[in-house]
């Protein structure tokens, strides 16, 4: 068990535990935001696992998570938007946490990887993670109760 796997285990417990708590309790907007953070954390853990097991193909799973996570959050924001209109907005801390956590995991991985195709892939995954998180948190903040929806 090397340092990457230890980091993955720590991130798994310290990250996904609170995510699970926030998804199961509290107002609906916080639950959706917690689910979004959960996809980000799982993607980072998968990257660490791929490095720790020394199996580069495992990175593909992380790429799929990075792509599917924001899409899922957009779907939730669209379908649950009328219900979570009155919930308190998320502060800027969630977005800052997402960017910081991504940088804290992806940059050491890039340094350990060295130049090559897999470095480009890692950077691409990091960019997708940050961009997708910004987009989905904007969609969450913009979800308002719709008046015209009931008549449709």
């Amino acid at each position, binding site marked *: 068990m090397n340092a990457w*796997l230890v980091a993955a285990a720590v991130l798994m417990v310290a990250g*996904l535990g609170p995510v*699970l708590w926030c*998804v199961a309790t509290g107002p*609906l907007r916080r639950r959706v935001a*917690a689910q979004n953070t959960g996809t980000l954390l*799982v993607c980072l853990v998968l990257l660490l696992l791929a490095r720790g097991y020394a199996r580069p193909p495992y990175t593909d799973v992380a790429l*799929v*998570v990075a792509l*599917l996570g924001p899409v899922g959050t957009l779907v939730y924001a669209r379908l649950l938007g009328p219900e979570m209109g009155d919930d308190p907005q998320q502060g800027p801390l969630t977005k800052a946490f997402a960017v910081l956590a991504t940088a804290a995991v992806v940059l050491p991985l890039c340094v350990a990887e060295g130049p090559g195709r897999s470095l480009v892939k890692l950077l691409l995954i990091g960019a997708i993670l940050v961009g997708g998180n910004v987009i989905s948190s904007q969609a969450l903040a913009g979800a308002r109760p719709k008046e015209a929806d009931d008549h449709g």
Partner: protein
Amino acid sequence: MADVLIALALLLVAATATAAVAVRDPARQALVLSVLGLTLTLLFTVLQAPDVALSQLAVGSALTPLLILLSVRKARRRSLDQVRAEKEAEEGGT
């Protein structure tokens, strides 16, 4: 030592599954179910089965919650329509 990771992933799956049962509202349950799909993905990856993890990811964290949300929405709309129709029938009768 790799067993530690497997045990952690198993614990996470068990905790998430319990939470999914404990949450009663179906729309909120869909959110917990998608987190359950994510933790199962982690478990399969730790067990060195990334192909299973990929299919679990597609089914568990994307398709199942979407299906639940869509059917909850349709059922709610239908019951709303029924209430409205009954009200109109009452008003028409009196």
